[in-house]
C-alpha cells in the first residue's frame, strides 16, 4: 500500500506513535515514510509527547479495595443450607436448564400460593361433609314435591 500524508496521520491518530502498534501490513511503508518526511516525524513526536504525559499521570490509589471485594466474594461464595437449597431450585451454570426451570418455577408460584391460601382460608364455604348433607336434604324435598303433584 502506498503511504500518503493523510493515511500516515490516520495511522498515528488511530494506533499511536509506536510503530509496533501499527498494522503489520502497513508498518514497513509507514516507517519508511516517517524516515523520509520531517512533517511525519514532527507528527509522531507530538503524539509521543502526549503518550509520555499519559504515562506520567499517576495510577489510581484505591486502598483496601481488594480486601473489601474479597470479603463480599467470601460472603457470596459461602453456601448456607438455604443457599444450597436455592442452588438446587435455581440452578446456575447450565443455561438451558436454567432458562426452562426458572420460568416454570415462577409460573407455578401463584398456583401454589393459591392452593395454599384456598386451603388455609375457607372464605365461608363449609366442608364437603356438610355440603353432601345439604344435597341429600334438597333431594328429599324434590321427592315430596313430586308426591304433592
Amino acid at each position, binding site marked *: 500500500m502506498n503511504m500518503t500524508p493523510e493515511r500516515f496521520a490516520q495511522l498515528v491518530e488511530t494506533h499511536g506513535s509506536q510503530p509496533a502498534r501499527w498494522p503489520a501490513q502497513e508498518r514497513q511503508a509507514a516507517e519508511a515514510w516517517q524516515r523520509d518526511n520531517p512533517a511525519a516525524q514532527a507528527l509522531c513526536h507530538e503524539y509521543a509527547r*502526549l503518550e509520555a504525559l499519559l504515562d506520567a499521570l499517576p495510577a*489510581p490509589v484505591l486502598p483496601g479495595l481488594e480486601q473489601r471485594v474479597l470479603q463480599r466474594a467470601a460472603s457470596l*461464595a459461602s453456601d448456607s443450607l438455604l443457599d444450597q437449597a436455592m442452588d438446587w431450585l435455581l440452578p446456575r451454570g447450565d443455561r438451558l436448564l436454567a432458562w426452562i426451570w426458572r420460568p416454570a418455577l415462577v409460573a407455578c408460584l401463584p398456583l401454589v400460593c393459591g392452593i395454599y391460601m384456598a386451603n388455609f382460608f375457607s372464605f365461608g364455604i363449609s366442608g364437603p361433609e356438610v355440603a353432601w348433607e345439604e344435597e341429600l336434604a334438597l333431594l328429599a324435598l324434590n321427592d315430596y314435591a313430586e308426591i304433592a303433584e
Partner: protein
Amino acid sequence: MTDDEALMQAIVAGDSRAYEAAIRQHLKSISHFAFRMLGNSKDTEDIAQETFLRLWTHAGTWQREKASVSTWLHRIAHNLCIDYLRKDKSALSSEYEDEHAGTDRPADAPEKAEQLQALQQALEALPERQRSAMVLSHYHGFSNKEIATIMDISVDALESILARARRSLKAQLKH
C-alpha cells in the same frame, strides 16, 4: 482447555477459591479502568463490586469463542460505567488531585505538573466513549479488536473514535 475456561468452569461449579483467584487477577485492571472513567473512588468501588458480583452470578454466560475473561469483565465494567455516567452525569467528580496531592514532584517541574493537570482535565472532558476507548487502548494495552468487542462496536467505528480522542487531547495540550 485454556486457563480462562478452567477458571470459568470452576466458578460456574461454585468454587470460591477460583472466584477469589479471578478477583485477584482482574481487580486492579477493572478498578483502574473504572477510576479513569468515573474519577472517584466511591463509584469505582461500586462498579468493581458489581462487576465481580456478575462474574459470580453470570459466569455461565461467558463464551470462550467470543472474548477472553479479561475482555468480558472489561465489557461488563464499561457498560456499568456508561450506565452510571448517563444516569448521573453530575456525579462525575475528580479525586485525582486529592488522591495525589501528597505525591512528590520535583520542584523544578511546575510546567509538567500543569501539563499533567491539563491532560487530566482534557481526559475527563472527553465524551464517555472516547474516554473509554483511549483508556483501554493506552493504559490497558487491549488491541483495537478487543476494545471494539468491549464497546460492542465495529473496529472501524472504534478507530474513528480513537482518532478523534487523540486529536482532541493533543489539541487541548497545545493551548
